[in-house]
């Protein structure tokens, strides 16, 4: 099970990198960054998975004794929660820049922004 998720995560990372490098539309490049982010989150969560463990929510009596051997790791999940929020902020910022660029040139094609190209 954890092999399926970790393989999917790495494939999504590569797909995001491919999208960042080859797409021409700014929105699609931003989607590529988002994919890259999501892939890393999936890899982190699947590394935290412990065989036979349940989610770290102690809503049953029997989970309260010997807790450490019955749950999956809560720390990477908390880290991923932080990472998702940061990713959301970065995506919102990139979209704002894309809107601003579109206001300037009326185009989202990356080829039409040559001001900094030598």
């Amino acid at each position, binding site marked *: 099970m*954890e*092999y399926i998720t*970790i*393989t999917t995560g*790495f494939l999504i*990372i*590569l797909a995001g*990198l*491919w999208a960042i*490098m*080859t797409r021409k539309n700014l929105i699609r490049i931003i989607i590529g960054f988002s994919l890259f982010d999501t892939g890393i989150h999936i890899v982190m969560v699947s*590394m*935290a*998975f*412990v*065989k036979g463990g349940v*989610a*770290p*929510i*102690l*809503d049953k009596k029997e989970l*309260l*004794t010997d*807790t*450490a*051997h019955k*749950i999956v*790791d*809560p*720390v990477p*999940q*908390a880290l991923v*929660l*932080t990472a*998702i*929020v*940061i990713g*959301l*902020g*970065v995506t*919102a*910022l990139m*979209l*704002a*820049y894309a*809107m*601003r660029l579109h*206001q300037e040139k*009326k185009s989202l094609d990356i080829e039409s922004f040559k001001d900094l190209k030598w």
Partner: protein
Amino acid sequence: MKKLLVLFILAAFVSVLYPLYSSFHGSTGLTEVSQFYASKENIEKVNSQNLVTAVVVTYRGLDTLGEVTILFLTAAIIAFFLKKESDKRTLRKNSEIFKTAAKLLIPIITMLGIYIFINGHLTPGGGFQGGAVIASAVILMFLAFPNMEFSHKFFESLESVSGLVYVGLAAFGAILGLGFLDNAILPLGKFGELFSAGAIPVIYSFVGLKVGAELSNILHKFKSVQADN
């Protein structure tokens, strides 16, 4: 030529990631830090049913404070970049079905968001998730009633007050001598009930309000600069 370069970079990336992948054999137990968090005396000390929330709000509370700051910074930069209010847009009239459904759904979605952040210490969820759900109700409002007045002032003051209360509660723990962001400043209550885990539900509710207000402000900025071309 360009395709070859792309392929080369992808291959280089794969060769960097492959050792990580091949050395992964599935973890068999918790790390030492997590074992400390999941030990019986520490569970009783924090008294939160959801261990992830305990890690996010109490043990790693300072990280969450930084995270909230980053979100605030994002909202500030977006407000700086997209400040030009555009002329009136010509909008297609929304259908009656959409408007009625939105009127029915917006209060229910907002209530779900509030439920998610109030129960953050008992069930999966918490301030960030609840805030995002509330912002989704706001975006539905923007789509259904585009000409409605959006009170910028209200959302901005809600956000500032929530942020101040969060920092104030955190500092209160330090003043009492328990530590910055300690949750024992309020009575811990009975394990697994709504009023348990000390200050965690209070802090997470304010985080939820702050995140919801902030995302709504960002969405309004995105909406207000759009113009017809």
